[in-house]
């Protein structure tokens, strides 16, 4: 069994391709069809392009605070490729690539960071929960989703993301223990990107690995090279099979690195050396995936240039569209507090409309 071969207490880490994208563990190379491999890669490039543009938009004052994913694409796309459509994705907030892979549109994802809740109203069939800002609390949502799946005896799992910082939260413990207790079909991915904003992981967590926390919950845990899309795919595929069989949750630590800032309000130069970042840039997951695909004759440099051009244009066009259509109307900020407006809310809304009318201010911004 895969998880028995990598002991998190000894810091053993699953890796299938090296940092150049060469297969180093061919026994474990997963058989993924061409279409899926290309979808993985294209999503990563779209995510990267969107991230880079979003940082520019933010600097131009066109976007709010933004949390980029640069360097963490494989840790997000690998898992998604191993899931089925009916599986649930429960987000923290740095999973842009996972969202795109799972069916959130680029426009919706941008609209959220543009400051409009409508960006979290994903299409009906898309089983993704909205971005979850309070650290760690999403684990419990995933446990509940998984409980319902199990109760209804459905072929579906909940996959939930959290950061290394989030594992320090009490809710992480409650949710992991809850899921373990009832053998729930839940997969937890810790994106260990080494920093909780400015605080390095080793300064606030004594444990040698984050995957070893699984042992205390009586479940499987594995440390995976988070910049290796094939390793992430395999770990999640295996975890999914176990979950559906009734073997319970799995904790997967994706060892990765946040190349960019925590958010656009953060300056990482204050707390880390450029040389450290450069080391991780060498392990860039997109480069690895590209080399792997070229090696398999599924991709070429020419196609790559074309793809980058195409996606850049898509990102620009999409964001322009968001800017044109992303405003919020007054009633929207009241309408979704309850199913129906309470008398109290109705009164407050009417008051505000009256005020706007009396002062000759246009409804809306």
């Amino acid at each position, binding site marked *: 069994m895969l998880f028995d071969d990598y002991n998190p207490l000894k810091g053993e880490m699953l890796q299938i391709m090296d940092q150049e994208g060469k297969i180093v563990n061919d026994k474990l190379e997963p058989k993924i069809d061409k279409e899926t491999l290309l979808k993985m890669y294209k999503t990563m490039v779209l995510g990267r392009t969107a991230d880079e543009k979003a940082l520019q938009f933010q600097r131009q004052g066109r976007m709010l605070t933004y949390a980029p994913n640069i360097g963490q694409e494989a840790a997000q796309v690998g898992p998604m490729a191993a899931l089925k459509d009916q599986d*649930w994705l*429960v987000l923290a907030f740095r999973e842009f690539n996972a969202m795109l892979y799972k069916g959130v549109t680029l426009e919706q994802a941008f609209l959220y960071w543009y400051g409009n*809740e*409508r960006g*979290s*109203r*994903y299409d*009906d069939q898309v089983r993704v*929960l*909205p971005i*979850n*800002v*309070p650290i760690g*609390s999403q*684990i*419990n*949502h*995933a*446990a*509940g*989703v*998984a*409980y*319902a*799946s199990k*109760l*209804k005896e459905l072929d579906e799992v*909940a996959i939930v993301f959290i950061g290394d910082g989030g594992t320090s939260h*009490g*809710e992480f413990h*409650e*949710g992991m*223990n*809850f899921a373990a*207790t*009832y053998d729930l079909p839940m997969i937890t991915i810790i994106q260990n990107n080494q920093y909780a904003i400015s605080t390095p992981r080793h300064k606030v967590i004594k444990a040698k690995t984050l995957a070893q926390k699984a042992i205390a919950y009586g479940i499987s845990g594995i440390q995976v090279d988070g910049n290796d899309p094939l390793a992430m795919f395999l770990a999640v595929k295996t975890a999914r099979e176990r979950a559906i069989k009734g073997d319970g949750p799995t904790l997967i630590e994706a060892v990765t690195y946040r190349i960019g800032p925590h958010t656009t309000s953060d300056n990482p130069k204050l707390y880390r050396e450029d040389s450290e970042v450069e080391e991780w840039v060498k392990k860039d997951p997109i480069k690895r995936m590209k080399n792997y695909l070229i090696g398999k004759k599924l991709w070429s440099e020419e196609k790559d240039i074309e793809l980058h051009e195409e996606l850049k244009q898509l990102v620009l066009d999409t964001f322009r569209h968001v800017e044109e259509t992303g405003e919020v109307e007054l009633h*929207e900020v009241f*309408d*979704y*507090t*309850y*199913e129906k407006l*309470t*008398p*109290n809310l109705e009164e407050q809304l009417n008051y505000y409309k009256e005020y706007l009318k009396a002062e000759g201010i246009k409804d809306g911004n």
Partner: protein
Amino acid sequence: MATKTILQSINEALDQMMEKDPSVVVYGEDVGFEGGVFRTTAGLQKKYGEKRVFDTPISEAAIVGSAVGMSINGMKPVVEMQFSGFSLPAYNQIVTHVARFRNRSRGKYHLPLVIRMPYGGGVKALEHHSESLETLYAHIPGLKLVIPSTPYDAKGLLIAAINDPDPVIFMEPKRIYRAFKQEVPDEMYEVPIGKARMVKKGKDLTIIAWGALVREVEKAMELKPEIDAEVIDLRTISPIDYETIIASVKKTGRVLIVHEAVKSFGPAAELISIINEKAFVYLEAAPRRLTGFDITVPLPKGEPYFIITPEQIAYEMQKLVDFKA
């Protein structure tokens, strides 16, 4: 029809809803095998199995947080906080998620869940077992807060809460769980959320109360037969039934609000503000509030100082009637 206690009515509501709707699940600490520390869920696990009625780890955040996830995936969870004083580890989930999912997802997801919690003092309990935390929940947009005071309402309101598409905090006045019985229909029925109950019509003053204190008000009226009070059981703390309150105060011109929650920033402060906004010119006396003092609920030896008695309510009624501008 048989006579039932509040406790039996709650149990019956849960039982009938579980039978009718397979998406209803009931869980919390000691809720399954034992049937709850007060036995409100007694017999349910035996009848509906360990998957739908179960004991959880002592993890209030997980209890409520998982209810969020279950609701999203098609269930109707009715979860229990063993005491309202222990709901605070779940407060993060309740405030940051339960109250917000509909809005956050612009209606893609909504949470038809119920969080039950026994509340209030007067049972000679340990620390943290006697709190009245209405304000903490009524203050949060997106939540509804319901408190029954009779067996009839307990059943009807709980059924309404489970059927409600929005999340409902359901506080149970544990002091009167078994205090008295009332005729309660065997069939299912709803008592509407957001509607106060006119306990008794009257003309001299309006008294607003809820939970265990409605009975104390009724006792106070027996001590003051010469005062013709109109008594309103608020039943839903949020959203408040303005209409009933304002109509009554316009008629009587005098209002007394009685609650065990501590005074400052409490529900009475909100009610009096509403009355001032909507019935100011009808008032013949400054509104009064009789509430818990702004102190930690004392342990049993000191608790009698804190508990509101019928005598104290009668004293306040007299003051209000005697008031002359």
